[in-house]
C-alpha cells in the first residue's frame, strides 16, 4: 500500500466527526460485513484511525477507494467550505439534450487534454445532481488528493457550484465545463456561501416564491394573544400588506440559509457640510457587509415588521431576485466598472 493512500485516509478520517463516521462507512463498499461489524465506534478517533489503517493494509485499498469514501461523506455533508455559484451562458442548440454518460465522457476527456495529471471522479446523487471530484496535478506532479475541488452541476440547468478551486485551476475547469455542457461561456454568479443547499436553492429558485395574485393563499393561523382587538384590527390591514410585500421580495416559508451579503460601494461622497470629502475626485470606497445565520429570514422580518420600508429597496430584494450576494455599486452615469447600476440614496 502506498504511503500517499495512507495519508489521504488519515486526513479524511480526521475530518469526519465520529458520529458521522459510522453512517459514512456503512454506505461505502470498501469493507466486508464482518469488518464493518468489528468497528467499535465508542473508541477514540485515534484508535479508529489505527484500525482503519490496518484494514487498509489488509484489504489493499487504493486511493480510488478512499476518494470514493470521501465523496460519500462530502455529498452527505455538503454544507462545509466555501461554495461559489457559476452560471453557464449562451447554450448551443443541443445543450438541452446532454445526458449523464455523454457529459461524463466529455468532461473527463476535455479536462484530461488540458491537464496532464488529473484525477476525476463523477457520481450522480439521488437528487439528480452530478458531483464531480477533481484532484489536480500538473505536468510534473501527480494529482494531489489532499486538496480536491468539488463541482456540483444539475444537468440541463445553467448552474454550477464549486468549492476548493484555486485561481490557477479556474480557467481549466471553466473550459472543460463549457465544452461538456455545450455552452459558450461561463461567468461568476457572484453568489457564495458556506451552505451549498442555500446557494443552490437560491439560484435554482427552489424555495417558495410569492407572487401577486387575485387569490391569495390563506395565511397560516397565528396563535398570538390579542391585546386590544380594535388596535389589532386597525393594524391588520397594513400589517398583512407589509407581510405580503416582504414575502414577494424574499419568499415564503423556509428561506435558503444565506449567511452574508456584501455591497462594495464606489460612489461619490455627498455631504454639503464636509467639503473635503465631497470634492474628492476619486470615488468613495467602502464595503458594507450584512451577516446573519439566515440573512434572508432577517431581511424578510425587517420588512414585514416595518423596520425596513416596503416596497423593499432593490438593493435588498436583488439578493433573491438576481441570486447573488456580492454587489458593486457605482454612481449612475459614466463609470467603467459599473456592475450594477443602482443609485444609492
Amino acid at each position, binding site marked *: 500500500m502506498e504511503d500517499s493512500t495512507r495519508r489521504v485516509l488519515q486526513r479524511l478520517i480526521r475530518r469526519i466527526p465520529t458520529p458521522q463516521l459510522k453512517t459514512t462507512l456503512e454506505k461505502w463498499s470498501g469493507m466486508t460485513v464482518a469488518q464493518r461489524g468489528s468497528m467499535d465506534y465508542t473508541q477514540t478517533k485515534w484508535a479508529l484511525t489505527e484500525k482503519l489503517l490496518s484494514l487498509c493494509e489488509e484489504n489493499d485499498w487504493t486511493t480510488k477507494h478512499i476518494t470514493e469514501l470521501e465523496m460519500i461523506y462530502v455529498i452527505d455533508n455538503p454544507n462545509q467550505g466555501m461554495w461559489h455559484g457559476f452560471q453557464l451562458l449562451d447554450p448551443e442548440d443541443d445543450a438541452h439534450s446532454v445526458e449523464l454518460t455523454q457529459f461524463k465522457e466529455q468532461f473527463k476527456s476535455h479536462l484530461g487534454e488540458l491537464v496532464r495529471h488529473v484525477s476525476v471522479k463523477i457520481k450522480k446523487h439521488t437528487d439528480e445532481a452530478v458531483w464531480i471530484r477533481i484532484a489536480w496535478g500538473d505536468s510534473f506532479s501527480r494529482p494531489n488528493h489532499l486538496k480536491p475541488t468539488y463541482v456540483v452541476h444539475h*444537468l440541463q440547468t445553467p448552474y454550477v457550484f464549486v468549492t476548493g478551486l484555486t485561481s490557477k485551476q479556474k480557467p481549466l475547469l471553466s473550459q472543460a465545463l463549457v465544452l461538456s455542457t455545450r455552452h459558450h461561456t461561463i461567468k461568476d454568479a457572484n453568489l457564495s456561501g458556506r451552505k451549498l443547499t442555500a446557494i443552490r436553492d437560491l439560484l435554482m429558485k427552489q424555495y417558495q416564491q410569492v407572487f401577486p395574485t*387575485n387569490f391569495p393563499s390563506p395565511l397560516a393561523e397565528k396563535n398570538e394573544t390579542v391585546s386590544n382587538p380594535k388596535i389589532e384590527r386597525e393594524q391588520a390591514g397594513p400589517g398583512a400588506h407589509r407581510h405580503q410585500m416582504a414575502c414577494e421580495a424574499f419568499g415564503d416559508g423556509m428561506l435558503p440559509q444565506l449567511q452574508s451579503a456584501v455591497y462594495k460601494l464606489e460612489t461619490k461622497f455627498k455631504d454639503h457640510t464636509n467639503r473635503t470629502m465631497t470634492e474628492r475626485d476619486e470615488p468613495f470606497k467602502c464595503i458594507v457587509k450584512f451577516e446573519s445565520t439566515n440573512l434572508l429570514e432577517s431581511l424578510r422580518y425587517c420588512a414585514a415588521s416595518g423596520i425596513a420600508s416596503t416596497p423593499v429597496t432593490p438593493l435588498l430584494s436583488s439578493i433573491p431576485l438576481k441570486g447573488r450576494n456580492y454587489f458593486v455599486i457605482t454612481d449612475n452615469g459614466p463609470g467603467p466598472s459599473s456592475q450594477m447600476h443602482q443609485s444609492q440614496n
Partner: protein
Amino acid sequence: MEGTSTKGGVLSLLSLLEVQARSRRHVPPQRSRVKELRAEAEALRVRREQLKTEIQTHQSLQRLRTSLDRQSTHDEEEEEEEEEEMDEDSENSQLLKLMARHTRVKDLLLAHHLIGGYDIVKTRHGKGVCVSVATAYEGVCLETYNLEMDLKPTLRICRHNVPPFVPLSSLAEQGDMQTDIRAFLETLSQHLNAFAGRKQQLKLVKEQHKTIEVMESNALCSILVLMFTVPKTKTAILCTLNYSDHTACLPARVQFECDVKEILESTEWRKNCSLLMETPLHKALMTMKKMGNIV
C-alpha cells in the same frame, strides 16, 4: 271420424283437467311468488323514495347554485333571504351549500381553462403584470408557475419561478414576446404542462410499479431508463425512453436493450415499443404487466 277423435279428446281433456285441479291445490309456490312480487314492489318503492330525495337534493342544489351565481353578480344582496329558507336542517343544508359551491368552482375552472387559463394581475399600480400558468395532467391540477413582468419600456420578465431547466429566455426570444405575448405564453404553457405530465407519469410509475426499477432520470424528465424483468426466464431488459420533444408527454424514441436478442425481435416486444410511444408510461406498463410481458 270426427266423433271418435273427439271421444278420445274428451277423455284426455278430462284427465288433463284433473291434473290441473290437483295441481291447483298446491298453493304454496304461488304464495312465494306473491312474496317475491311484494318484496320487489317494496324495493321499487324504496328506490322511488331515493330518487325523489335525489331529485329534491338536485333541485335545492340547483336553487343554491342560481342564488350563488346571482350573489356573485349582485354582490350578496339576497343572501339573507336564502339563509332563512334553508336553516331547518342545518347539517344537510351546509353540505348542500358546499356541494353547490363545489360545482360552481368546477364550472369556473372549466371556463377559465377554455379562455386560455392564465391569471393576470396588475402589479405596482399598473407598471407591471403577474401572469400565472397552471399545469395539469389527466385532470389533476399540478404546479402553478408565475411570471412577473415589467411593461415599460419593453415587456420584460423580471421575476419568475419557472424551473431553471425550462429554457425560458430562449422561448421568450424565439416567440417574439414583445408583439405576441399570447403565443409566447402558449408555448411556455406547453413546455410546462408537458414537463408536469412527464413528472407525474414518473411519480405514478414509482408508486404503482414497484417491480420496475428506475435506473436513470433527469430533472427535466426528458430521459428515462427503466429496467424490466421478463417473467419465467428472469431476463432483464433495459428500456430507454427519450422525450426529445419537450412539449410532449410521450416519448419520441423508445429503445430496448437485452442480452437475449430473440426476445426483442418477437412481435410482442415490437408491440410494446409502439405501446410505450403511444400511451402514457404508467398505463403502458400496466398493459404490459397484464399481457405477462414483464413482472
